[in-house]
């Protein structure tokens, strides 16, 4: 989800560098940032309280079950296979779109990104409702690969776009063959981006619930859900959650050594120039066919299956809320959560960018720990804690669902807000302050308008993520309310495919439009504009 990170962290050439002030950050800013970090880490704290309440012995006993081993094996083998497949597919699609003379590459650049926005449970529904063999491990590999390879494509495409074409020319002139030049130079330059994408892919697989439930594939997340269903208050779910969070932490930590390596070094200060695109020649047709196949599998099948079920189903046995009613709730919750997440990101981003300090960096990094916590774990922790320790405060209310969304997608908001804060000239604020304006007014009248577009982008990203979220929503949705995702799920679970299908189509439409905008945004990043 934070695929924009790779692009956002890369310094854009046109923007003057912003000197960070080294002085003490204002107390208010530090306090607000600390409060945000505390909120984000609260599910982890709840989890630890819950686990310690059960006692180390019980937890250890629950973790060292034969079931844990089989869950670990299922989860790890799927993660490894899908991540490897996504690395290959995502890198190849990025290279075809960015570095070749492929006809229609502007259109492909958008089409290959769209599947990322479609929830994996919808792709899974499309495939498994039509093809009986799409189930278990093979089904999970297929569906997840089709759903998440854009997480590799996006950062790699951004990286290739800003990479220095001179290096590959140099390598070729030194006698390296075309293929080896590709491997050693192109892939080498994008190594950081590929690894970053792979980390995101792995985290998504750890957190996925809906798709695996449909495919009948057991992972840690599906089992935690089952344990929670069999018994609402046993510590089993929290014990397994801890294992899952540790797995997420390990994957997240795996990226750290890779940071800074594989970065593109330029051959000269003005080396950004029109890249010479590789001529595909006779390979053009096979490449076009391969991309068409990929898009047909990832987009065509879910859309086709939904249309098929709408046309073919018999008499419905279920009633439920209308698409409009579910859509209104989805929009309200998503907008509230997007606003909250974006606002929470502002103090953390300001502190991290404007007042560089070790403490600030640690604080910013700590918020990324949320990435290691699947939505299910966050939802269960909040729900259980609200009921058990907070005297039922906010229990089963919209407020708790919105809080869960805001925590879950905070990293997404931070990436956008941080990038826009980094590119807002601090001199303007200093000028305003030197004219005697108080700090809050400066923030309101100068800083906010400068970072506005970035905030809007963050809002949209979080909105999209919330609108297509299923797992946390299932746990936290208020009594009597259905969102698009939960109503789809209720129909799908009861095999009412004809009734589930329109919801699937609406979810896909909601997801596809913003992702189209996102893809066009990437399309206009520097590097591409120089090429066309």
């Amino acid at each position, binding site marked *: 989800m934070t695929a924009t990170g790779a692009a956002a962290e890369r310094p854009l050439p046109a923007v003057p560098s912003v000197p960070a002030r080294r002085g003490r950050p204002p107390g208010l800013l530090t306090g607000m940032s600390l409060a945000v970090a505390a909120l984000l880490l609260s599910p982890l704290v709840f989890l630890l309280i819950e686990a310690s309440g059960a006692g180390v012995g019980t937890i250890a006993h629950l973790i060292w079950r034969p079931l844990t081993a089989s869950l670990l094996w299922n989860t790890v083998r799927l993660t490894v296979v899908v991540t490897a497949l996504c690395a290959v597919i995502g890198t190849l699609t990025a290279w075809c779109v960015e570095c070749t003379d492929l006809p229609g590459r502007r259109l492909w650049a958008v089409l290959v990104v769209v599947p990322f926005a479609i929830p994996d449970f919808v792709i899974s529904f499309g495939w498994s409702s039509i093809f009986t063999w799409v189930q278990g491990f093979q089904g999970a590999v297929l569906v997840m690969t089709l759903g998440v390879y854009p997480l590799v494509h996006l950062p790699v495409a951004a990286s290739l776009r800003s990479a220095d074409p001179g290096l590959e020319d140099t390598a070729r002139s030194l006698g390296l063959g075309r293929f080896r030049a590709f491997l050693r130079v192109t892939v080498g330059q994008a190594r950081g981006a590929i690894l970053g994408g792979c980390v995101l892919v792995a985290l998504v697989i750890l957190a996925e619930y809906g798709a695996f*439930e449909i495919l*009948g594939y057991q992972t840690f997340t599906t089992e935690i859900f089952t344990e929670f269903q069999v018994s609402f208050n046993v510590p089993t779910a929290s014990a397994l959650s801890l294992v899952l969070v540790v797995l997420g932490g390990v994957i997240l930590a795996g990226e750290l050594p890779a940071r800074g390596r594989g970065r593109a070094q330029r051959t000269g200060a003005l080396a950004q120039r029109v890249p010479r695109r590789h001529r595909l020649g006779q390979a053009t047709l096979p490449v076009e066919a391969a991309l068409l196949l990929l898009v047909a599998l990832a987009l065509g099948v879910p859309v086709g299956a939904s249309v098929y079920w709408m046309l073919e189903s018999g008499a419905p046995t*279920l009633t439920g809320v209308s698409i409009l009613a579910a859509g209104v709730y989805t929009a309200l919750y998503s907008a509230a959560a997007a606003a909250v997440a974006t606002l929470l990101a502002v103090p953390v981003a300001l502190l991290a960018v404007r007042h560089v300090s070790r403490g600030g960096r640690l604080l910013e990094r700590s918020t990324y720990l949320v990435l290691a916590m699947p939505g299910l774990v966050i939802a269960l922790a909040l729900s259980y804690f609200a*009921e058990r320790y907070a005297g039922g405060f906010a229990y089963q209310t919209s407020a708790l669902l919105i809080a869960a969304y805001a925590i879950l997608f905070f990293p997404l908001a931070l990436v956008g807000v941080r990038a826009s804060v980094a590119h807002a000239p601090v001199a303007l604020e200093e000028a305003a302050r030197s004219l005697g304006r108080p700090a809050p007014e400066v923030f309101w009248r100068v800083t906010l308008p400068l970072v506005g577009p970035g905030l809007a982008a963050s809002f949209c990203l979080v909105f999209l993520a919330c609108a297509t979220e299923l797992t946390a929503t299932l746990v936290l949705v208020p009594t009597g*309310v259905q969102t698009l995702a939960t109503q789809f799920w209720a129909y799908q679970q009861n095999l009412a495919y004809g009734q589930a299908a329109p919801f699937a189509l609406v979810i896909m439409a909601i997801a596809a439009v913003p992702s189209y905008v996102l893809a066009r945004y990437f399309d206009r990043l520097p590097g591409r504009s120089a090429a066309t």
Partner: protein
Amino acid sequence: MATGWLLSACGGSAGQSITLYNGQHVQTTDSLVSAFEKATGITVNVRSDDEDTLADQIVTEGSRSPADVIYTENSPALEYLQSKGLLTAVEPSTLAHTPSRYSSPQGDWVGISARVSVLIYNPSLITASQLPTTVLELADPRYQGELGFAAGETDFQPIVTSVARAYGTAAALSWLEGIKANAGTHIYPDNETITNEVNRGEVAFGVVNQYYWYRLASEVGDSRVHSKITYFAPHDPGYVLDVSGAAVLRSSTHQAAAQRFLAFLVSQQGQGIIARSTSFEYPIASGIASVQPETPFDQLQPNSITIPELGDGSEAISLLQQAGLL
């Protein structure tokens, strides 16, 4: 933004609204709820989930539970809540509507509808004569790879309890281990999935309740039904009739409205909705018969296990856990 919708889940102060924790299938509940709302003007907020989840949730919530009524698919979840002292007595006039053997002997919950276990099979993969006639045969190695099974499905627990009652817990445990081996990779999340997978020909047969198959037929249309159902031998421990019921929570602050909802469920109107709807469960009030193409209720020949013997399901859950299925 308005705080109205934000706090909507807290319930209105008008008093004329109740919260229903619904462990029954939404197919069954939705039409009953809307008819009740129309008849009484009382709003029902429905929270649907697995019956075990809801029961445990109520135990955790204790006296703070937002729920007024719980409606479950099977009796064990209600017996469990009754044993915890969390339910209040059902009004005698409500209990009088349905046969007493289908309600709590203690009077804390009332039976609403009945369901019966069946074998669902795909004739292109297995013939009727090859199917097991007794539930013990499900563990027979000759069915390896042919049996679909849902360990987490609460509908299966009464069958486990019934087998343990008939043959003892040790035999029930080895029987479950045999089932696990036979099911292999065909372990599914619920009975809907078993029904679907058998119908698609992914697995040869499984054990579900009768209504899943009728719903499937209604949902996908007769032309796509590639499966059939049949019964175990009469009075076999696998031929289990179990009861869906409802109760009012002791912590409910809307006792009168909650009792009215229960009364509605067993009324002629409520039972008529169950009889005619696509839920395909059997109404149990006297004088109302299911009009669907099902085996008539009085022609069923289930095992003699009673509601108290089905208990709170804890023995079944424990056996499933020991067999590594939960």
